[in-house]
């Protein structure tokens, strides 16, 4: 409670106003925007009262842009200029797009990301997403009566840095201030207030229009950690429409959906969709189709029949769920709550399957289409500073893979470990390897393995202008910083001179969710092999350093040694160099290194004495005390 002061009559200050903030669910099929008003979060409808905005953008000749339902309607007449499911292209290069062949678009290989040639010229996925976000922003500003101070946008948990950065860029292009990017499953959990619990492990089952995602989240001390993600990027409500349509064809002896004229295909799919939605409320649903000869064909589909024909699709989601649980090393009993997300979870077949699988009633009190946007709106409201003091929580996410830099020998020094809560900043000191080294190349990598070759390269940059000095005497501080959206920046600074190099990591292409999972799995199974490799590489680096140091010492002070000692040192140096060159095993290398250091012990003492003698030359004992 703020403390007040007395003002002059009529001049008391007005307190700050409610800052308009919104949560945006930028979906593959549909998008929506929600906001908190009078402590209640709700999705905002457009002028026609529709909450969902189809994520479809159509470009018209003369730079016109149409977004949503109207664009969706023209999908079949103008497929090249009507972009659907643009989310699949965010932060992706042409090489990443396996399915590009089957799509009607003319892709171009843009810098780091694909472009799409439209009647308005080339459009990047960022621009297409920005068009969707702009439509949502205009909707919110019209209904709230003022500009939005900030938004929270949700992204799939498996989105990597490139995809997150692309989403942020799209928001900026749409004139939105991004308060935070939030993982979709986390947003769903927030909408149900699961973050208020002390801790728990939650499964978020998200069956949307065209995608299926399963996420396992762990909440501890107010931090949501994504334990595992899985799913199928080509499985959703549309597939259920498809099986109903195929079933209808079988009933009437039609040779599959593909045998129908395109117009009939579309109307059958629409009838199938209507039947599917009707089955969520009723026990049976009727379908009818007027075929080429003008006669109408009809069929009645019951819930039981629907369950039978869609069993394979449901089974597919459960398989992915099992896999995610296994990746998280959990069993069904470890799950303390299940949340249903996505319009397709309205289907009783999906609910029943989830209930049976987890053996508990899933949370479904909030409209599954809106739940993600509502969670984002709650978070946006607090980040905008509208929350009451007592629920001043800040939701934290974690980084999914460790981040580090390459060190000598192709090893990775991890600087930010996996599952660190974001935002995070960590620093570590490094030094030069060679005498007089004036530049250092820094290679930022992501992954759990010990060797660079097995991790993913994120960025490279150089620190130049290091003052020449003896190897190991220069202190270079490398700081990693990840902001709350999971974006990384790296700074290297030479402590003595203050010279600095900096890089914002925007990877040119991203990792897919299954790549992250497989990288994690590789790391777990390969850790012993990695340790052995690491020890060997470290021994090799040590051996090289020892050789370098010995040769430079010999170059200066060989005169101090007797011929016998010199020969002995040279011999052990030769043995070690030979071991290095022939890629000797760890033990042999260690023995040779140890032999060289023993051989040079006496030499080191001699050098020490000599340099002390030199320092003391011409001084009396008095001048030293």
């Amino acid at each position, binding site marked *: 409670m703020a*403390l007040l002061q007395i*003002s*002059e*009559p009529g*001049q*008391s200050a007005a*307190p*700050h106003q409610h800052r308009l903030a919104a949560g945006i669910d930028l979906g593959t099929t549909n998008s929506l925007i929600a906001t908190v008003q009078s*402590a209640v979060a709700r999705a905002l409808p457009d002028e026609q009262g529709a909450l969902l905005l189809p994520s479809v953008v159509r470009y018209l000749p003369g730079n016109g842009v149409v977004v949503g339902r109207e664009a969706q309607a023209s999908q079949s007449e103008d497929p090249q200029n009507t972009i659907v499911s643009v989310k699949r292209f965010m932060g992706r290069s042409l090489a990443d797009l396996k399915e590009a062949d089957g799509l009607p678009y003319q892709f171009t290989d843009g810098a780091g990301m694909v472009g799409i040639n439209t009647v308005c010229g080339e459009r990047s996925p960022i621009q297409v997403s920005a068009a969707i976000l702009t439509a949502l922003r205009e909707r919110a500003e019209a209904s709230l009566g003022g500009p939005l101070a900030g938004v929270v946008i949700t992204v799939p948990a498996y989105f990597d840095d490139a995809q997150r950065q692309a989403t942020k860029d799209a928001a900026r292009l749409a004139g939105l201030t991004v308060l935070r990017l939030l993982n979709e499953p986390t947003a769903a959990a927030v909408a149900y207030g699961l973050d208020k619990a002390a801790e728990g492990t939650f499964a978020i089952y998200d069956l949307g229009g065209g995608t299926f995602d399963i996420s396992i989240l762990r909440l501890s001390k107010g931090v949501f950690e994504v334990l595992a993600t899985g799913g199928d990027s080509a499985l959703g409500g549309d597939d259920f429409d498809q099986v109903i349509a195929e079933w209808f064809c079988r009933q009437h002896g039609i040779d599959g959906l593909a045998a129908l004229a395109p117009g009939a295909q579309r109307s059958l799919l629409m009838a199938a969709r209507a039947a599917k939605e009707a089955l969520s409320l009723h026990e049976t649903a009727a379908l009818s189709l007027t075929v080429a000869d003008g006669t109408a064909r009809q069929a009645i589909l019951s819930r039981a029949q629907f369950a039978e024909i869609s069993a394979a699709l449901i089974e597919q989601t459960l398989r992915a769920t099992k896999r995610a649980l296994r990746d998280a090393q959990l069993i069904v009993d470890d799950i303390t709550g299940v949340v249903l997300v996505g319009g397709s979870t309205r289907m009783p077949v999906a609910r029943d399957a989830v209930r049976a699988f987890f053996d508990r009633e899933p949370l479904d009190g909030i409209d599954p289409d809106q739940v993600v946007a509502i969670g984002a709106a709650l978070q946006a409201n607090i980040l905008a500073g509208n929350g009451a003091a007592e629920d001043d929580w800040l939701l934290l996410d974690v980084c999914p893979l460790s981040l580090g830099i390459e060190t000598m020998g192709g090893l990775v020094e991890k600087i930010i470990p996996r599952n660190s809560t974001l935002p995070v900043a960590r620093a570590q000191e490094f030094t030069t390897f060679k005498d007089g080294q004036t530049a250092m190349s820094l290679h930022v990598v992501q992954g759990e393995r010990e060797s660079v070759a097995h991790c993913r390269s994120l960025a490279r940059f150089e620190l130049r202008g290091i003052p020449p000095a003896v190897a190991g005497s220069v202190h270079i501080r490398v700081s990693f910083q990840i902001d709350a959206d999971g974006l990384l920046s790296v700074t290297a600074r030479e402590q003595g001179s203050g010279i600095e190099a900096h890089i914002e990591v925007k990877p040119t292409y991203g990792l897919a969710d299954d790549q992250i999972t497989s990288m994690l799995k590789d790391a777990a199974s390969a850790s012993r092999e990695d340790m052995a490799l690491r020890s060997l590489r470290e021994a090799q680096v040590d051996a090289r350093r020892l050789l370098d140091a010995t040769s430079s010492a010999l170059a200066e002070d060989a005169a101090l040694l007797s011929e016998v000692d010199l020969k002995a040192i040279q011999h052990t140096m030769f043995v070690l160099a030979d071991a290095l060159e022939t890629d000797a095993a760890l033990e042999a290398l260690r023995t040779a290194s140890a032999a060289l250091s023993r051989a040079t012990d006496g030499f080191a003492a001699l050098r020490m004495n000599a340099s002390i003698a030199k320092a003391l030359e011409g001084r009396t004992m008095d001048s030293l005390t």
Partner: protein
Amino acid sequence: MSVSLTPAAVNHVKKSLAKRGGGIGLRLAVKTSGCNGFAYALEFVDAVAADDECFETLGVMVVVDPRSLGMLDGTELDFVREGLNEGFKFNNPNAKANCGCGESFAV
């Protein structure tokens, strides 16, 4: 209907009025603004309006307009020091929720 001041508040109001060199009391009001619907206002009084209600605590006159009085009835105004800050605090039995910044409230 009543609005009162704690002794600490009385003390500070008297000092403030003396420092200002004029004024006959303290006005308490509620405005419709802020993020939770309503906000308090605290002003010096030079003139009392015809429909104002006046209350006196320990020699200090508190003036409240009739619209605000409904939401301020039973309020005790305190003067507190919190860390480096000092100022007035409304202990209002009508307020059901305060916003995070504390500048506004809901009834």
